[in-house]
């Protein structure tokens, strides 16, 4: 499907913009020779700093607000920077993975508006109760089907992992399903549009690895990749007019599958002694602290 593997020179002819869009890809009155079509995958994640819990310590997902996933912001920033440099368009793709969908879809829309305000041109979102709660297998299938339906992307960029479930699978799964090269954990990336190549530095545990791949390709970025911009009020207002289109799984001809069961999700409570050492002098405080550490058996023998 789509034009994967096709020559980048086909660019622009197969791209079907969704309705009228503002702005122009022209820079200095001249169309850039090799504008980029970029898709950025954005998740509306449960906000780890705003967790609501029930009486049993279980995370109340319905009551916990959604926010744009931290590293997906870096993905949006990377995509917008590439657009600014090379020309082209950025499309955001997202799927709602937390319910109840009637309430959460509004929060997802807020997340999408944020990406649009940062410079994304249009958004496509998947809302279907079969995706809730999210599992990477089905989410990746749905996102892949949508990317293929839209077609024509040179680059698909996402964050290294979402801030709620931290699975880090979507980029790899989408790349594998589409048969595209995948560059994970990029801390910097650049495009050589003429050669149709993306080059990135992968940030691994023990090493930095510079790699290149032919476009189209999928890239996941780390938090080190850039500093996401903060949109201005004007950009936020203009984002309200950018097009957002919604799809169900049946629109994408994706069948639901049996998903793993999220049996429970509870806050980790670590019991600490919370002793604040009170003393007249610093010497006494130090002595008391040393005494406690000795009792705990954590001083060298």
């Amino acid at each position, binding site marked *: 499907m789509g034009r994967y593997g096709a020559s980048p020179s086909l660019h622009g002819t197969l791209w079907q913009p969704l309705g009228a869009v503002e702005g122009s890809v022209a820079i200095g009155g001249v169309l850039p020779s090799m504008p980029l079509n970029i898709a950025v995958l954005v998740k509306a994640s449960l906000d780890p700093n705003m967790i609501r819990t029930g009486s049993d310590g279980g995370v109340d997902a319905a009551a916990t607000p959604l926010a744009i996933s931290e590293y997906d912001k870096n993905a949006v920033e990377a995509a917008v920077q590439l657009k600014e440099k090379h020309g082209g368009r950025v499309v955001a793709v997202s799927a709602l993975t937390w319910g109840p969908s009637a309430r959460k879809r509004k929060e997802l829309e807020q997340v999408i508006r944020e990406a649009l305000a940062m410079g994304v041109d249009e958004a496509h979102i998947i809302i279907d109760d079969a995706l809730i709660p999210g599992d990477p297998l089905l989410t990746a299938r749905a996102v892949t089907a949508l990317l293929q339906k839209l077609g024509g992307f040179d680059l698909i960029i996402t964050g290294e992992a979402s801030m709620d479930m931290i699975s880090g699978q979507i980029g790899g799964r989408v790349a594998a399903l589409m048969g595209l090269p995948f560059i994970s954990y990029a801390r910097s990336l650049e495009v050589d549009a003429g050669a149709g190549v993306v080059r990135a530095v992968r940030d691994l545990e023990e090493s930095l690895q510079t*790699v290149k791949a032919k476009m189209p390709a999928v890239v996941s970025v780390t938090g080190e990749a850039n500093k996401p911009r903060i949109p201005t009020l004007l950009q936020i207002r203009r984002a309200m007019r950018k097009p957002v289109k919604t799809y169900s799984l049946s629109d994408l001809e994706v069948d639901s599958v049996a998903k793993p069961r999220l049996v429970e999700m509870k806050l980790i409570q670590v019991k600490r002694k919370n002793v604040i050492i009170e003393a007249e002098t610093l010497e006494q405080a130090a002595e008391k602290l040393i005494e406690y550490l000795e009792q705990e058996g954590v001083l060298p023998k």
Partner: protein
Amino acid sequence: MYGVVRVLVYTAGPAQLRGLAGLVAALGASEAFALTPGREDEVAQHAYGVFNRVYRVDAERLTPGQLAELLEGLYAEHQPDLVVGPAVKDGVDAGSRLAARQSLPMFTEAVSVELFDGGLRVRRQVLGGRAMAVLESGLPALVTVKPQLWEEKAPSETGAEISTVKPPAALVEEESWEPKKREAVDLESAEVVVGVGRGFRRKEDLAMAEELARLLGGVVGASRPIVADYGWLSEDRWIGISGKKIRPKLYIAIGISGTPQHMAATMDSKVIVAINKDKNAPIFQYADYGVVADLYKFLPVLIEKLKEKLGK
């Protein structure tokens, strides 16, 4: 047990086989196969007896794409119930590709893995390490784990049969590779860690933390700003959910406010001490013992008293 359980293990390097063999043994797998890149002697050293066969890829390291491609071949050949990989970046990357191609559920960085009749139950940290999720799925499935967690269960006997395979061509081409700057500290296995944060005003002042760590037989780690914003210490010193997770007997956090991202990476510490001049700093909620004091005044005193105590 649960009838025949066949496990396929993969690694990014032979040293990871130890912990993964430990998990295979703990699960009571009836058959197990392993795929690893590495030199012949290194692989032989880790060819644990729980494996029916170890497939050694004749390469120092592989791209995740190469690893995934080789795994796919072995998956087709052995039809495993469970695929187990290392929860390192290349391991998660390769796993996600295999999981997509074979339509497998995948669980990244499980901290426990149990089999029950026809199914799998895992626990994993979510929400920035602040919550624990329990998930169940049918088999086959894929999990990645930190190999260190199962190293104690690793069988001692080796001698599994080794077959050598050739690496396939890579779609993503490596142009260069350089080891990260590191200072030969191993935060993750240190028994004592002294953490430094923004309370330190100058790089030279970290010498106080170094001295404290030396007295206690520990190492110095840091919160994110010290590493990422100031660049005073190398990245392998970063304690955080995206940096290193520590599990020492004693963690002393000095001039660190206590963000959730930092604290989630320290929660396995046995004893946590906080030294901070702001009595309202969140760190005190996470500490066993807290000293509200200016570190510049308190640390020299603490170091002197410890020297007396330890006779140094």
